């Protein structure tokens, strides 16, 4: 059902306008950001008969602010903008690498961070594990006010956040960490990654890992932290071989999803190699 005024497509001019338009449409409406997921709905045999509220022209949602203690990323910042704005910040390397290697250049010019987080049926989203490993949080905005939550919490509730609420911005804390995003596509570029490992770690002055975050994407339907592996990395110096051995031990934690591009067992099997490459990448950052 379209909104009260019969529109199937409303280009919102402000956040307030977007939230009012979404509230008006209720379950018959949805936000439309870069549209790269929504436009492919017929190919996935899904409905595309909702009434869409386009949010990509809202200035506030397009802002990316690098502040002293955090980076604030509006929901409609594109993968290309993320890559160019964050490429020179060492503490955000995982997110910049996720953005610059995802999809292809023409798609990166329109696909947004908010769309990547909200496409709940998209297991291979690159930005999601990168944001988990950087301890990012989200701000959700709705008619009844705003709410802040971790990415982990958001992934648990995202299918039920309600049609009248929007992801407004993503907040990435700035800390002195190293990070890397390692993905395995079957071809060198262009297709979805079979598996993703995003890693962030803080080291003490002697090079011993003080804290670690490992997030795994594309292996299971929803990206998540690999806590057992994180614990085993803490207290040791960065050692790619040892990290891969530990990953091998804990791989049983994952049940790989079946897919046309790869069977579930394969997605799990490649994890130790991706962990080794991620630790190596951190070792090379000084």
């Amino acid at each position, binding site marked *: 059902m379209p909104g009260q005024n019969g529109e199937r497509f409303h*280009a919102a001019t402000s956040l307030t306008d977007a939230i009012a338009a979404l509230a008006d449409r209720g379950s018959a409406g949805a936000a439309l950001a870069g549209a790269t997921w929504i436009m492919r709905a017929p*190919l996935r045999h899904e409905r*595309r008969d909702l009434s869409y509220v*386009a949010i990509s022209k809202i200035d506030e949602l397009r802002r990316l602010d690098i502040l002293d203690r955090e980076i604030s990323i509006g929901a409609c910042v594109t993968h290309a903008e993320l890559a160019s704005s964050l490429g020179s910040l060492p503490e955000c390397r995982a997110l910049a690498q996720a953005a610059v290697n995802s*999809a*292809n*250049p023409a*798609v990166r*010019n329109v696909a947004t961070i908010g769309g990547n987080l909200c496409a709940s049926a998209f297991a291979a989203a690159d930005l999601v594990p990168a944001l988990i490993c950087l301890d990012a949080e989200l701000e959700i905005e709705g008619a009844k006010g705003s709410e802040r939550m971790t990415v982990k919490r958001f992934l648990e509730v995202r299918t039920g956040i309600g049609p009248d609420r929007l992801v407004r911005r993503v907040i990435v804390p700035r800390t002195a960490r190293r990070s890397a995003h390692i993905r395995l596509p079957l071809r060198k570029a*262009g297709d979805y990654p079979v598996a993703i490992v995003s890693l962030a770690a803080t080291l003490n002055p002697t090079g011993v890992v003080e804290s670690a975050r490992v997030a795994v994407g594309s292996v299971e339907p929803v990206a998540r932290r690999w806590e057992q592996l994180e614990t085993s990395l803490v207290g040791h110096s960065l050692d790619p071989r040892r990290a891969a051995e530990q990953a091998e031990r804990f791989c049983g934690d994952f049940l790989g999803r079946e897919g046309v591009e790869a069977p579930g067992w394969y997605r799990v099997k490649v994890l130790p190699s991706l962990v080794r490459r991620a630790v190596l990448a951190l070792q090379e950052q000084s």
Partner: protein
Amino acid sequence: MSLRLVVNGEDRVSRAEPLTPLVDVLRDEFHLTGAKVACREGFCGACTVHIDGQPVVSCLVPLGMVEGREVRTVESLAAAGELSPLQRIMEEHDVVQCGMCFPGILMVLTSFFREHPRAERGEIKVALVGNICRCTGYERLVDAAVALAKRS
């Protein structure tokens, strides 16, 4: 509902549904058949056009999103009847075979060379990851693009 946009410098109005893919409006309504439709999935790049100067896959852009924006298609590259330097070098190197992928490749490389006029071979290949060509094997077209970069 009618929607205004600028296509290759001309003001245009479309009466298509706002969710209609831009490529269909360009081809079926405006008869600009340069942008090709192959996968409709964003994977092949045959439908690439510029919106406000940036390459995008027009099969995934709903018409409603381009209201008031500037669209350029491959037809604009030789608007005055004279080939662009990129088109000329592709012709000199006899690169084109069936031509299905070419409008997209030209649009991607046109914007890429604007920002990286002296790009290296590896950078050119990375820029083309979203363009699938079933005929040329890529090497000849990359050779031509490298030759253009060397001339500038």
